[in-house]
């Protein structure tokens, strides 16, 4: 029965994605409905994950679809930290459509089923959880970078309606994106460290190589910020890094 919880979670995320689009027309009911959609959907997905964890003997999300399910939960959870405040609500416009689409994909791939899974090692589980949490943080940072570029473009073009939509201030988006990257990098570093501890020679693959490139890219981003790489340039680099994250996730989920 617990696996049916994916339906309300998906519906709530989908509702939130649509309602955030309504928020573009002006702050109000649509934004509040969206926020409640995110909260209820996340609670439903949490219950689903608890059900999966309770039924499985080990780490239940070691398939590509399962880890995608966990990844979506982490992304939405990270978003909820800021997303509930009216000022940052519009961030959901970049996060929730992606979350809804990925959860639907995880469902289609069987990642939301509740069944007895094969036992997996604790080290592998820790490695996967840390990596997924890190990638979730980077996804959130990419959402902020996308919102930054959208609003910056509107300000540069002197759009008449630039003040009609309640978007977070540019500086705040830039700062929060950098903080998200920093937090995600810590998790990624730990995840890579845990993975390296159980690494066997000859197992180095493309996903690992791209993961290291991701790590280097985001580390460069933080270093370059100190040299004045802020705003638009930082947002572009952030999105470029996220493109690599998408490659890693594709490689680990679909190619393995």
């Amino acid at each position: 029965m617990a696996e049916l919880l994916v339906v309300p979670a998906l519906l709530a995320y989908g509702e939130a994605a649509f309602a955030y689009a309504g928020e573009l027309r002006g702050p109000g009911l649509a934004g509040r409905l969206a926020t409640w959609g995110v909260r209820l959907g996340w609670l439903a997905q949490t219950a689903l994950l608890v059900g999966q964890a309770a039924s499985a003997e080990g780490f239940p999300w070691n398939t590509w679809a399962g880890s995608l399910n966990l990844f979506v939960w982490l992304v939405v959870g990270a978003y909820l930290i800021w997303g509930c405040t009216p000022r940052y609500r519009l961030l959901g416009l970049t996060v929730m459509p992606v979350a809804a689409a990925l959860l639907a994909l995880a469902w289609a791939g069987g990642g939301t089923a509740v069944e007895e899974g094969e036992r997996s090692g604790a080290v592998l589980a820790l490695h996967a959880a840390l990596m997924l949490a890190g990638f979730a943080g980077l996804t959130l940072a990419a959402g902020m970078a996308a919102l930054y570029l959208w609003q910056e473009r509107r300000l540069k073009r002197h759009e008449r309606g630039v003040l009609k939509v309640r978007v977070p201030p540019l500086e705040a988006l830039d700062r929060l994106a950098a903080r998200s990257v920093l937090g995600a990098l810590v998790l990624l570093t730990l995840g890579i460290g845990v993975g390296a501890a159980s690494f066997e020679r000859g197992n180095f693959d493309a996903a690992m190589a791209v993961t290291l490139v991701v790590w280097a890219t985001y580390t460069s981003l933080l270093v370059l910020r100190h040299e004045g790489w802020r705003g638009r340039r930082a947002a572009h680099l952030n999105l470029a890094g996220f493109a690599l994250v998408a490659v890693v996730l594709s490689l680990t989920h679909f190619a393995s």
Partner: protein
Amino acid sequence: MSSLTLVGVSHHRAPIELRERVALDLDACRALAQQLARHLGGEAVVLSTCNRTELYLAREEDGEAEAVAAVMELAGDGAVELASALYRLRDEAAALHLFRVAAGLDSLVPGEGEILGQVRSAFEAGTPGPLLDRLFRQALHTGRRVRIETAIGESPASVPSAAAALAQQVFGELHGRRVLLLGAGKISEATARNLVSRGAEIAVVANRTLAHGDDLARKLGAQALALDAVAVELEHVDVVVSATSASGLVVSHATVAHALRVRKGRPLLLVDLAVPRDLDPAINELDGCFLYDVDDLRAVVEETLSGRRGEAASAERLVAEEAERFRVWHAARDIVPTIASLRALAEEIRDSELARAGGRLSERERRHVESVTSQILAKLLHLPTIRMKEAAAAADGVVYADVVRHLFGLGEEERRR
């Protein structure tokens, strides 16, 4: 029963030449309200702003003629011209008008916030009684409700406030943000004050005439500089507001580009309110620079005003709701004396019957009978009271009051005396 009369003149029908003839300061409003209340034996409040002068009267008889005469007297020589611009409203229409005024829906800029304070001041300076007290308190409540429940007052309504809102869109909170003012004229000052009201700090005022710049700098707690010394300041400030009367560019693309190298990616908002423009339009192409000229800001204001007009529909609904509540309350006042008389009659009968039976009852029995008869009266009169109030709200109150007075002979005793 008191009826409400409003006589006034506003920007809708009267040009400024007429409005300034009847404009009053708060002391004059207070004096006129006291004079009208004393002379007419009722209640009076006078509201006078740059857009309107309105007299609100409440008294037993119609007070319109006296109110018109008072406004005409204020107009002096312009009384003839004023006559065609005057509006006269009664009871519910007058209440609805005041609620719209308090909500900012009758203002030049829909939703402007200043009017609510002006209505409060007029009320406090007036001579209200039960009717005007209720009317103005509900008007203030309506004004607050509209601003809380709709977004009509949220967006900027002027060029200086649009500039400040843009600064918040770039930086968020403006506390501690440094502003450089180029030019020391009224436009610079108005924009500076708007930024200061949101927490920004005016760091430097640069002007061609250093003495003028020095005056404004002192007022704003800033440092005064000559215009040709601003290049270094561009490295440290967050917002530049320019409104000089220079005929050519005051800040070039190259100057800002040079400053950006030192700023390490910190954004810079530049607001050019001068015509001809002070700041090189190419500055907007620089990474991290946002340059707005006066036309850009006007377009933003127009757009937000259209948003305010959109919100006005929601605000009108709230105002109509409050006006209906006032109408129900006002109408119920017609029926209140009848209800009071009916209850007094019932109490009188109960008291006299209790007095007649009093000698035959013990103390305990008397208390018991008193309690029972009191409950019977309350239950018996509850439904008629509710129905009469409902009838009053539906405009049948007077008919119901007459019927009840006739059936129960209310007031006949007094008439016989």
